[in-house]
């Protein structure tokens, strides 16, 4: 087998993984001491971190629900991490057991874990690839096998784009994905945002994030809106994630504390 050049030579669980840190924020135990130490350090610097993760996960749940209700039966979740509580296939297949889901993550442990969770599920698969390599994702045999790109697909790029620097040209990556999609497809996107924050706050946040292995690339609402180029944004547009079609009005309170902004766009006919 070909080893992708970004894949590590060995699996080092002494190094924190953003996927497992995220699991820790969500209250999971799919993590190791190094992940917990890093996550705790993050919480010390940014107390909202667990709230951010939960709010983002809830956004994912509501978005998948909405799209499944809208008739979408194919999902491509890029940067899926550890798909434990409330993952895409659970939500989608609850609505229609024939819904097909392909998870994509760069973290080999997350991929191995996903594979275990998905064992026996003919309608779901996991692929080890990098969001920065969209052609490889789109041409991957497992993606091709499970997803019919001539039919609408929901592409999920949730809580991952902030690990992609501007140098990696996120707009081009999304354009490549978009060009492969059939009309009626959707893009679900969320990421950390500094919208409305002062320069001082932005500098402080960046200083904190730079200490981690995966520095965050926060983006403004305008930048995120631009990333939906070619898609028609569904109401209410790009918002703090708790504000995106909340279950109850109260759950959208203090929405900017969630730090993540997101939205859902539809590819026109």
């Amino acid at each position, binding site marked *: 087998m070909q080893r992708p050049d970004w894949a590590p030579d060995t699996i080092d669980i002494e190094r924190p993984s953003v996927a497992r840190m995220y699991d820790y924020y969500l209250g999971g135990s799919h993590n190791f001491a190094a992940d917990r130490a890093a996550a705790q350090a993050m919480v010390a610097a940014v107390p909202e971190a667990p709230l951010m993760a939960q709010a983002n996960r809830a956004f994912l749940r509501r978005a998948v629900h909405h799209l499944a209700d809208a008739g979408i039966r194919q999902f491509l979740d890029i940067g899926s991490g550890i798909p434990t509580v409330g993952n895409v296939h659970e939500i989608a297949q609850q609505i229609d057991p024939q819904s097909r889901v392909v998870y994509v993550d760069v973290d080999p442990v997350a991929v191995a874990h996903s594979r275990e969770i998905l064992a026996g599920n003919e309608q779901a698969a996991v692929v080890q690839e990098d969001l920065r390599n969209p052609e490889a994702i789109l041409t991957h045999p497992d993606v091709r096998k499970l997803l019919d790109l001539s039919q609408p697909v929901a592409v999920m790029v949730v809580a991952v784009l902030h690990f992609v620097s501007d140098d990696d040209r996120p707009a081009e990556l999304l354009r490549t994905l978009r060009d492969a999609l059939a009309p009626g497809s959707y893009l679900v996107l969320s990421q950390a945002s500094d919208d409305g924050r002062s320069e001082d706050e932005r500098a402080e946040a960046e200083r904190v994030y730079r200490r981690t292995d995966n520095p965050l690339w926060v983006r403004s609402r305008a930048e995120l809106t631009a990333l939906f180029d070619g898609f028609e944004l569904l109401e209410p547009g790009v918002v703090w994630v708790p504000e995106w079609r909340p279950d109850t009005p109260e*759950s959208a309170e203090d929405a900017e504390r969630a730090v993540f902004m997101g939205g859902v766009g539809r590819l026109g006919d």
Partner: protein
Amino acid sequence: MTESPGATPCPGAFARAWAKAVSGTSYLPMTQAQLESLLDRLTGQLAGALLTEPFDLRAGHRVGAELVAAHIASAEGLGRTVEVIQLRLVRDLGLVAEDVEDRMARLLAAVATGYARALRDRTLDEQESIRRAAMRARTQAERALRASEARFRHQATHDPLTGLPNRTLFTERLAAALNEPGRGAQRVGVCFLDLDRFKVVNDTLGHQIGDLLLATVAERLRKAMGEHLVARLGGDEFVILVERSAGTDDMVAVAETALAAVRTPALVDGHELQISASIGIVERQVAGANPTDLMRAADSTLHWAKSAGGARWSLYDAERNQRELARYALSAAIPAALERGEFYLDYQPLTSLRDGSLVGVEALVRWRHPELGVLRPDSFIGLAEETGLIVQLGGWVLAEACREAEAWSAGGAAAPFVSVNLAVRQVHRPGLVQEVRALLRQTGLPPERLQLEITESTMMSTAEEPVRALRVLADLGVRIAIDDFGTGYSNLAYLRDLPVTELKVAGEFVAGLRSPSVGRTDERILASLVSLAHALDLTVTAEGVETAGQAERLRAIGCDAAQGWHFGRPAPADRILARIR
């Protein structure tokens, strides 16, 4: 896990308060309505447990476990649950019981116990599953690494053009075959194969065709050799390793098969190429063999096959190799021998056939070898010419001859000229003119007393430089003789351009003069040569004259001078000169 919102249409105030309390303690994969509905159902169970007689701990355990199963699974989730039950359950539901405080304490304990147990199990399960995933990922990564290492190893040990094993792999396999324990008594063999005149294919049809031809040959050899390792060492060199040879016959059969495989015409990009190969075979016992010696022997043997004309195999011959090594060692020792003064010159007289006078002498080099005794030039000149050492040695001979010849004029009578052989390399070397000019100046030898003998083959090249140099030398007055005339291509064209003074006719024509019947043809050739030479204003010296009869007939033909045993063997200068004093 998730409840339909419609199951309990209107959750009570307590369930709503409970839902609010646990919201945000961990990620809950459900809507607020679903959460309230779930907690409403659990509220019913709690109320029931609080009132049922006898009190059942298991109801509390079940509620705790259900909370964890619904992902309300954090320390905070438990704390807030305990708090909200304690503060509000009895009040919100208007529950009345005799010992409600006591029962409440036991119920909370049971919920906390069930919750803690379930959370512990869940934590352990998740830890186990993530650890398993890490191990699986590690195995996967290691497998991928091994696969890529195997790929790198394949690249490092194979030739990209032909896909055959390369020199590295061949060397490893050969070393392994020789070092394998317990194999000492067995035999191993290699066929070192090289295509004949492959360079011509590259030069005339281009490297692309050359490469395709190599790939074709490689594929044929691989197929023909079966289990034997076929490697490409580079260029058009291939080697076949026979790890278990049954003897030289076995190896010859392998070589014949390989030659046959190469011999079949190859159709390469529309060109039908007929090629052949040469093979050097070495076969020996494993014990005592080492890869370096084996390959060196194979290389020498391949050269024997090449020098015998190619399209054949040669079998290694230790004695022949020994002789060649000795010859090589001898030539390598020439520079040191020159420094130690181990060379000296003998001279052979060139006698006038008109009056018997000594017209000149030919300088012949001798090597007084400290171990081998006096060596004649045929034992070391050939290799000196191949290795280029002839330039150094020839230079010494020329200088020594000039130095000695200058002294001969002191005798008074007309001193003979000295004739010195020049090797091809010496003539083609720039600086010959300066060298000769400097020697004549240093020794004081008159130019007309120096004769330079060159062979016809020297003039075979089309280079203009040697001709120009010889012309300058001739203009100085130096005599130029063509040695062994009549044995080469005898292309007479160069006689037109060259300032030649003399032709030396090869001894084999003279040999024919011994018997009157056989020698008629030789005599006619000689006569023609003489008249041709005279017509061109050249003198003729016959070589290899051994009898008076030969001398007489040469004289009758009109030959000017002669050289050979009949007129005197090579000897030190003073012995020769004694004749003219």
